[in-house]
């Protein structure tokens, strides 16, 4: 039951995806990169060319309703006039299951997601986290072969998102189909996925295990997501941690290899440290981040607009070839 897809949407998407049963593929990338387009193309909500073979059938040849794909939408799209139970029972009923049986199934799923007691409520009477649980239950109740989650944590409070993330990870681990999880949060990718697909400008920028992608990010966006700086030099990428960056007000002596002059753009607390974003000037123009102690930040007088020098020891730099597309 492997998924093997090549999807093209003119001007928006051109990607190849492969996933084994039981795996969770995290789809990450900047806004507008084509992540949502990818899952909507698989669901049949956006017209695409190419193919998407699953279980011997090509999804692209089927109508959306016949694809047996479960979709959790970013804005949930729970039917506002139906109770949570009726929302979850909608899928089974649409496939011909009797009402009483479909509702029993819905109750089971709501129970599994920990919101059994809310079955009678309308979506308008649910909190964001509860509504997202209902929408996950609604997608799973159709027993899909392929589960598509489009930013399921978007718009939830941090605490609610964390709790839901832990539960979702457990449900996805128990799910034997294939999951595509669109997210803009590195934590989702690192905690729930076995595979990461990095989408940028409608194409695949990188794919690999979460560890590979986290250690050797191929795009600045992913580097930021996993909290690293990344600089491209020819066919080589050089990544380093913000904690390894030294900030000076004067040009430091020593190796000129990892030395940049730039202007402070922002200064914000980051855990116990202060995170400084610097836009470099000169041959390499990039936004680099440096984590410094609050004491150092005060001593150096780091405020936006200040010109500083950034340097990194060569031993702190992880250099690797640009991962193949």
């Amino acid at each position, binding site marked *: 039951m492997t998924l093997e897809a090549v999807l093209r949407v003119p001007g928006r998407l051109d990607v190849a995806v492969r996933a084994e049963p039981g795996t969770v593929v995290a789809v990450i990338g900047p806004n507008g990169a084509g992540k949502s387009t990818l899952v909507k193309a698989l669901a049949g*909500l956006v017209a695409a060319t190419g193919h998407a073979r699953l279980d011997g059938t090509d999804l692209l040849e089927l109508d*959306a309703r016949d694809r047996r794909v479960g979709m959790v939408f970013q804005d949930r799209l729970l039917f506002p006039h139906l109770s949570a139970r009726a929302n979850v029972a*909608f899928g089974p009923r649409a496939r011909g299951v009797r009402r009483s049986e479909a509702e029993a199934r819905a109750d089971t799923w709501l129970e599994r997601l920990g919101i059994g007691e809310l079955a009678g409520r309308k979506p308008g009477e649910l909190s964001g986290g509860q509504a997202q649980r209902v929408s996950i239950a609604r997608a799973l109740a159709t027993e899909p072969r392929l589960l598509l989650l489009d930013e399921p944590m978007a718009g939830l409070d941090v605490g609610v998102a964390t709790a839901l993330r832990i539960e979702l990870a457990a449900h996805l681990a128990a799910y034997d189909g294939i999951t595509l999880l669109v997210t803009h949060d590195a934590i989702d990718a690192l905690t729930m996925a076995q595979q990461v697909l990095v989408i940028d400008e409608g194409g695949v920028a990188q794919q690999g295990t979460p560890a590979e992608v986290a250690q050797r990010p191929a795009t600045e966006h992913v580097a930021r997501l996993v909290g690293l700086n990344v600089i491209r030099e020819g066919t080589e990428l050089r990544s380093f941690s913000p904690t390894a960056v030294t900030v000076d007000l004067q040009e430091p002596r020593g190796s000129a290899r990892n030395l940049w002059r730039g202007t402070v753009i922002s200064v914000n607390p980051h855990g116990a440290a202060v995170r400084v974003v610097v836009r470099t000037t000169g041959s390499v123009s990039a936004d680099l981040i440096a984590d410094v102690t609050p004491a150092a930040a005060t001593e150096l007088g780091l405020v936006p607009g200040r010109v500083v020098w950034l340097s990194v020891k060569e031993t702190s730099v992880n250099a690797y070839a640009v991962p193949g597309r």
Partner: protein
Amino acid sequence: MSDTLGRPPARLLLPAGLATLVLLVPLVALVARSPWSRIPDVLGDPVVQDALWLSLVTATVAMLICLVLGLPLAWLLARVEFPGRRLLRAIVIVPLVLPPVVAGVALVSAFGRTGLIGGPVHDATGWTLAYTTSAVVLAHVFVSLPFVVISIEGALRSIGAAYDAAAATLGATRWTTFRRVTVPLALPGIAAGMVLGWARSIGEFGATITFAGNYPGTTQIMPSFIYQKLASDPDAALTLSVLLLGVSIGVLLLLRDRWLGTMGGTP
């Protein structure tokens, strides 16, 4: 309106006041001239009762026909991409701006005794639609359907197609989605469209009198009765006019949230 911007200028206030008078004076006159003491007598007249009853029946039947035919057409216009959709919408809107008497002439041309369709039907069966109660209903449907379709289409569009997409991923056919998602969500808009269509039918005069005539008991509805009696029996005409004014105000009250709230109101 903020007073800090200065007093509204007289050259704007004067025409605005005149406009209000133009709209208000005739209605006040109608109410003032009504033979309030004679109303029970007028309403007791069997001819009046016939016109009243016929108006209610034909408008209600027309409204139901408009719902059964108009809801699917509104759905098609709101949800399905097809070549000629803009043209179809234009066709739907034409009767909305057509002078009612022209609508009547058009209906005669199609369904009259010598009409495009009415002619062959009359030759074959000897029956003709024109000047029957059914003709009244057809005239009402013709003038009311655009109101119903456009109003429901607006309601369907404002819900958006996203719920349809969600239903499709859950395995629902378009018919199931229509029945279980689209219609329930659009219900307030559908109801408003029906009220609008019914009100349009109740007031219909030009197309009906042209196509169906003005025969007491079969095709004489309230507006045609008023038209006929204004000279000979002004009391009856005034009474029914006040009645229709009441109906209009009732419709306005029913739809006040949709009209006064969204179109006329400042948030």
